[in-house]
């Protein structure tokens, strides 16, 4: 029998059940009491992970107590830093290193996460310069959370590890420049953060290694061996590798303009190559007869 087939409840039933509902609700509240301490603990933990950099800077007591000119200067500085961070990110993305291959399209979620951590790094620097240690600590904690999100995103299938490696290396560089300015109280967190970032980067392929992520690029592996039949331009700072076919047939494509068939890379070695002067042409352990 379904509820549709049941007789409608009488008025008496309705009245008594209303009372029963109230009684039951009270019993539930008694039997399952709320632990305010637990709620507070979780609140702190959760909000510490909220990526909300800008309002925190603006709402810090220190900031509010600043003279107007100082506040304006802080805002201008923060905007400038974010603009620079954005430019760095945009520059990185427009380069060949982060352009998608056929299979490894840059995932928006991953790109967003990387952008977020990069932007927050800028804010951390701005906050350090504004001498607001409390906010610095919070932001470093937020940054740690950002990196965890990035780490998780990179484990997903289809993640563009090369793009992430490039972006995270830039961020690691930015982070390193802050070392001298981080308040003493936050040095522990800062060190932990640096370690965390290094750990993530260590799991990523070395952009200096093999295959290019350029659309026309080859498929070489990070160690520079095998694959690599495309005519791509390699990475701007490529160091060789990704040469030739595994079978070593002459004429095996080379996706990196910096490497010569014998693995003795030379910068600008090929007419096709578009490597910038950053390319340092490190010898790659080439094992095939690739040609430039």
């Amino acid at each position, binding site marked *: 029998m379904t509820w549709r087939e049941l007789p409608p409840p009488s008025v008496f039933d309705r009245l008594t*059940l209303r009372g029963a509902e109230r009684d039951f609700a009270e019993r539930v509240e008694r039997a*399952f009491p*709320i632990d305010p301490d637990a709620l507070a603990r979780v609140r702190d933990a*959760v909000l510490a992970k909220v990526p909300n950099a800008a309002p925190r800077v603006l709402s810090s007591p220190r900031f509010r107590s600043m003279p107007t000119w100082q506040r304006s200067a802080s805002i201008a500085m923060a905007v400038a830093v974010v603009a620079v961070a954005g430019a760095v990110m945009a520059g990185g993305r427009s380069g060949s290193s982060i352009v998608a291959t056929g299979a490894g399209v840059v995932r928006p979620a991953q790109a967003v996460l990387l952008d977020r951590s990069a932007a927050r790094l800028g804010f951390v620097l701005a906050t350090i310069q504004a001498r607001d240690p409390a906010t610095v600590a919070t932001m470093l904690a937020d940054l740690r959370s950002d990196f965890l999100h990035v780490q998780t995103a990179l484990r997903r299938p289809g993640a563009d590890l090369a793009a992430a490696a490039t972006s995270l290396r830039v961020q690691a560089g930015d982070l390193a420049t802050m070392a001298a300015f981080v308040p003493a109280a936050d040095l522990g967190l800062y060190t932990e953060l640096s370690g965390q970032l290094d750990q993530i980067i260590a799991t990523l392929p070395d952009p200096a290694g093999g295959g290019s992520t350029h659309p026309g690029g080859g498929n070489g592996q990070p160690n520079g061996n095998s694959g690599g039949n495309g005519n791509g331009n390699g990475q701007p700072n490529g160091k060789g590798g990704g040469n030739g076919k595994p079978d070593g047939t002459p004429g095996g494509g080379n996706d990196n303009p910096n490497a010569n068939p014998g693995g003795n890379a030379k910068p600008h070695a090929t007419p096709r190559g578009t490597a910038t002067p950053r390319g340092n042409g490190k010898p790659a352990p080439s094992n095939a007869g690739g040609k430039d």
Partner: protein
Amino acid sequence: MHEVALDRVVAKSVAGDQAAIGELYDTFAERVYRFLLVHAREPADAEDLLQRTFLKVIEGLPRYEARGLPFAAWIFRIARNTVIDHSRTRRDHASLDAVSDRPDDRRGPAELAEVASEQEDIRSALLMLTADQREVIIYRFFAGLTPREIGSLMGRREGSIRALQFRAMEVLRSRLARRELGQPVRSQA
């Protein structure tokens, strides 16, 4: 919180406003905690699940779109999924279904605290319900959702939810009244 005010807080939270997210937490934390408590049994587990739930909520906020699902219902869907994930990964987790296999193992000892005893009464009473009835009662009395919100969560009409609640309350009233009188109770299943 009024629906319009809630919409505003949700919109700010989606934009990443920390204060708004804090307000959102304050609005729902108690209800979510109690909802998790009835599933998790141990307060420490409920606390852990609460944190996981809200982290998922925050992570999902940028993707949240109303699309007819009330925000409260969206949060409790996440909470429910978190409970399910938790019970899958921890076999010793005492979900309601697990309790049904051993309904009497925590009942009766005099040394049990009054609260624990009361909890057991309610859990046992809930086990007398059908799965749908139980879900409705938990959403209604532990999570504090409206029949409309429950309906959108369970994919049913509001009238259907009210009817399920009505039948469930009959069973609960009978069951809990008998227990208070010390009479034996028999499963209706």
